[in-house]
């Protein structure tokens, strides 16, 4: 191109450039994929501005077999709870039920049934073995918008004083519990 043959070092550098770029891209992808399996990276995650804010104002009625709750109930808490948005029509919610059932002894879980018929939500909870200490019904899904929920399942870790400390829009997994939820919940306990 420039009329002068490229010097051997320059030629070697030019040959290495695509390899370096490909290597960089490879490392990037590898980090994303390993983050996805570890649960530290979620490409679908919407960075909820709710994090480290008090829970939004809401008051939701009972959903059988549980008792409903409001923002006041969460703000009055002295120890952490997990708030889990679910629905009987949601397949990933079915998948996370055994995990939630295994967790309920260590951390109280409060459920909110999202846009669900009362009888369907009741049937779902009974079939799943009810991991919830309390269950509220968000029938029109408007409280969910105040929480910044974009779909079910979505889960929030609420610290003392009703402050949202952690959030995920993916189904809860064992790894999430051991790596993130329990260490954080334990640090929030009085």
């Amino acid at each position, binding site marked *: *191109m*420039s009329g002068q043959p490229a010097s051997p070092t320059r030629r070697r550098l030019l040959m290495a450039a695509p390899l370096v770029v490909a290597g960089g891209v490879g490392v990037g992808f590898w980090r994303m994929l390993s983050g996805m399996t570890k649960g530290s990276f979620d490409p679908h995650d*919407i960075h909820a501005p709710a994090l480290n804010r008090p829970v939004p104002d809401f008051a939701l009625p009972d959903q059988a077999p549980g008792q409903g709750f409001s923002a006041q109930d969460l703000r009055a808490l002295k120890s952490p709870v997990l708030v889990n948005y679910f629905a009987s029509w949601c397949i990933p919610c079915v998948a996370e039920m055994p995990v939630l059932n295994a967790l309920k002894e260590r951390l109280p879980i409060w459920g909110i049934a999202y846009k669900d018929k009362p009888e369907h939500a009741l049937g779902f909870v009974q079939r799943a073995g009810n991991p919830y200490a309390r269950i509220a019904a968000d029938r029109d*899904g408007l409280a969910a*918008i105040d*929480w*910044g929920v974009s*779909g079910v399942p979505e889960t929030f870790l609420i610290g003392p004083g009703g402050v949202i400390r952690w959030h995920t829009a993916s189904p809860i997994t064992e790894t999430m519990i051991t790596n993130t939820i329990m260490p954080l919940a334990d640090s929030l306990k009085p």
Partner: protein
Amino acid sequence: MKTHSLRHYGVIALLACLLFAPFVAMAVDDPSEMLPDPAQEQRAEAIGSQLRCLVCQNESIEDSSADLARDLRHVVREHVARGESNRQIMDWMVNRYGNFIRLKPPLTIGTLLLWVMPLLALCIGTGVAWWTFRRPRTVTPTPLTDEERRRLSDLTETR
């Protein structure tokens, strides 16, 4: 006679389809969703077309038929009917879903690269073009080494 009336029905059905086509295209599934005041409805549509559907992620809530999009359309219309400004409604949405809900990202530190990229690309492109097409420097070739000169004379002699 019978076929005649059937054809009539066909024409009426076609007209009905054409009549309701605009509503279908806007994904406002139900005309009852719309505000009675056309000016307000137009404002609500303008706001909605700037809001990302969190379910389909690449569609606006006006275009999406997801449940959440319908709820958000409803919320936008409620706020518009209450007389809130576009800015207030946008802030309300961003407060809940973050800047991700805005289809047009605002200029912040995090989006700076995104916004200046066209300018940056133009500068880089100009730089590369200038570097490539500049007049080739007249370079004096490096003189032959003694070894090379000897080889050359060997070759020319055998010829």
